């Protein structure tokens, strides 16, 4: 049986009026939100999951908050995985306004799955509490076909679970970063200073090196070249000076330390000396040039008081400037001479842009700039594709700015967020014998 033709169930003009009334209501009683569409870059076709998503754009639109007296959901929960916030919101937006303001742009983007309507998986930035909500369901039939048409989308959204998704929106957002997890920190605290020294001549032979500038921020022992009008003089720099003391030997021991990345990684006995008092003799070192600790070694002497073995139990830290120039060979024929000491890496130059990609000169790996500071000289990187190396030059792909990595700590944690990975590693060093290798741990 056909319906009564004398009663209309909505004409186009009535529908327009209804749509306009809805929009007016939302504009009066609603709030402005940012709508952030998900660009689905790649998908896993086996498990039917996203692999890579980008959130680069945002659109301002007004929305009515249905749960005006507070967030829905379970609130803040303490779980075995730390604190989980389970806030949920229900927002009502106008279908027409979505179409006018947002859809027309989304339809142009091939990475947007469904541009005609709000997508499940898209994000909403909620300005009242500065939260990111992920749309989990778009209800388009509430209210149900008034005057023969639907006028609103009801967006049911819950707080976003962040798993290092890409996009300019998140690039510089420190609050989204669990340190040591999605981000690795690389520092060059201040640009280093190159060392310099003046040679002293004894006749035509180079006899001594007087250091005029110790330099700073060396992560390697710089090479020393003797220049001048003579021939044959060679010298090397020492970042740490070793002193075997505590007793008076018949002949003095000569030790050659190797310093790398501020640590004394080797100590070679060139001459063990003789006549050291075994019970009194100790090996001491100069203080670190920057904040750090002295190395600790255990010497072994034979019955003649000759140093035969040195075991390094702690490599120390903070040795990054030149302490002494040792003349290996004085050469001959010098009337003037000078030292040419290898320069320190140049540090940070230029201006990076937040969110740009940097490329490593040695490894070829890339990462995204999360934050940087020129005066303090550090760079914070996000989502690296490789483990960058100390001494490696990182160059910004967009800005052309560069930084040489002086030091880094991939697991550095400057805050007390979820991760305890570093804590366990540090505590385990004291109690676990990993001499046979830790198949999982850091630094194996």
């Amino acid at each position, binding site marked *: 049986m056909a319906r009564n033709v004398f009663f209309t169930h909505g004409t186009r003009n009535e529908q327009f009026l209804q749509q306009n009334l809805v929009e007016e209501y939302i504009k009066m009683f609603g709030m402005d939100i940012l709508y952030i569409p998900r660009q689905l870059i790649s998908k896993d076709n086996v*498990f039917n999951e996203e*692999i*890579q998503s980008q959130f680069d754009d945002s659109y301002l639109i007004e929305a009515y908050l249905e749960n005006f007296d507070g967030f829905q959901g379970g609130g803040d929960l*303490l779980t*075995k*995985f*730390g*604190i*989980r*916030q389970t*806030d949920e919101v229900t927002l009502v937006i106008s279908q027409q306004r979505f179409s006018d303001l947002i859809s027309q742009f989304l339809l142009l983007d091939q990475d947007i799955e469904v541009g005609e309507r709000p997508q499940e998986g898209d994000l909403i930035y909620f300005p009242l*509490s*500065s939260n*990111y909500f992920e749309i*989990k*369901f778009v209800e388009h039939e509430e209210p149900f076909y008034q005057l023969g048409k639907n006028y609103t989308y009801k967006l*049911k959204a819950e*707080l*976003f*679970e*962040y*798993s*290092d998704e*890409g996009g300019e929106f998140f690039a510089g957002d420190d*609050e*989204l970063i*669990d340190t040591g*997890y*999605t981000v690795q920190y690389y520092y060059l605290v201040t640009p280093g200073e190159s060392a310099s020294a003046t040679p002293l001549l004894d006749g035509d032979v180079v006899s001594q090196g007087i250091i005029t500038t110790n330099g700073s921020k060396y992560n390697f022992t710089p090479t020393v070249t003797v220049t001048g009008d003579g021939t044959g003089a060679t010298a090397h720099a020492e970042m740490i000076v070793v002193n075997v003391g505590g*007793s*008076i030997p*018949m002949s003095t021991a000569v030790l050659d330390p190797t310093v790398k990345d501020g640590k004394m990684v080797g100590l070679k006995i060139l001459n063990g000396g003789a*006549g*050291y*008092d075994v*019970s*009194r003799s100790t090996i001491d070192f100069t203080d670190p040039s920057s904040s750090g600790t002295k190395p600790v070694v255990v010497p072994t002497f034979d*019955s*003649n*008081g000759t140093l035969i073995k040195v075991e390094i139990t702690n490599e120390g830290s903070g040795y990054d400037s030149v302490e002494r120039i040792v003349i290996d060979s004085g050469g001959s024929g010098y009337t003037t001479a000078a030292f040419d000491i290898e320069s320190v890496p140049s540090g940070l130059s230029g201006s990076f842009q937040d969110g740009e990609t940097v490329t490593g000169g040695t490894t070829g790996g890339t990462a995204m700039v999360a934050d940087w500071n020129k005066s303090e000289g550090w760079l914070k990187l996000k*989502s*690296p*594709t490789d483990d960058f190396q100390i001494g490696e030059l990182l160059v910004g792909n967009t800005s052309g700015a560069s930084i040489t990595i002086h030091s880094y700590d991939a697991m550095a944690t400057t805050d*007390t*967020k*979820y*991760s*305890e*990975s*570093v804590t*366990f*590693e540090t505590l*385990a060093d004291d*109690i*676990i*014998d990993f001499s046979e290798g*830790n*198949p*999982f*741990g850091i630094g194996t």
Partner: protein
Amino acid sequence: MLGNYTYNKVIRKCVIGFGTLFNNIEVRKETGGTTFQKMKVPLAYGPKQKFLARLEGQPELNKKVAITLPRISFELSGLSYDSSRKLSPITVDKVKDGKNVRQIYTPVPYNLDFSLSILSKTNDEALEIVEQIVPIFQPSYNITIKIIDDVNEYRDIPIVLNSLNYADEYEGNFDQRKLTTIDATFTVKAYIFGPTSVQKPIKKAKVEYDTGSPKVPVRRAQYIVEPVALRDKDSDGTGLTITASVNNKVSTLPVVDSTVFNIGDYIEINNEVMKVKTKPNDVSITVARGQNATTQAAHASGSVIDIITTADTALLESGDDFGFNEMTSFYG
């Protein structure tokens, strides 16, 4: 009755040892065979004091997102006695600890149950994490833990992977989140030790005996023997030096002041022990070189002279070489 305070932190060490196995798990995202992203998966011990969790996890009251993923969490879920590893409870381990010998009774074998949970956004990530863990446990993996600091006791502690439970909740209405979790249970075969006690070296032996017989008067004797230091132990010779260098042959040593020495004193210069024979004047002594099995060696001017005294004897430790001082007494 028990009251013998002990806390060797064995269980705590097992928690640390277990945790450190999983602190370097990584997740990589790839497209077309190229890695475009690497993430270290954060690990934490699950249980937390609630106020600390709130202060550290939400210092600004509000987080921008629900949670960051993936994450690994683990916790100690139970302790049970393992009778299959029981050993005789009266066996004593003795270990040298500096001057002393420490002794400790056989530990009691306990199994510690751990559960490890992995939360991830996608199946693939969860499986990526699992495949980094599972192959190492066949089904156990041993770690060597310094279980008692006092006695420097290292033990191989097997960690056994018992089971893996994989859950992927995806059915239902769209209001519910899809959740991929993996729960693994492990058994850590630990030993829990009791208190250690200290046994110092014996430094005096005394024997008393009768020498008489039925036909002669009784005569009682006492024999006491005590160790004597052969080498200087306390490096107390500050200010006593030789004033000129000597070779490895001469028997007359130039000294600052010979009156501090007594004839018969043993002295040590660098690594050589000598015996004072005479004092010709106030600034020299004559000695017998190379005493107590030490090697005669040259010594530089200014080398320190240590006198071997009863203070050095008091510092003797078990395991040191030492001489004897004996005394025999007779009583009518």
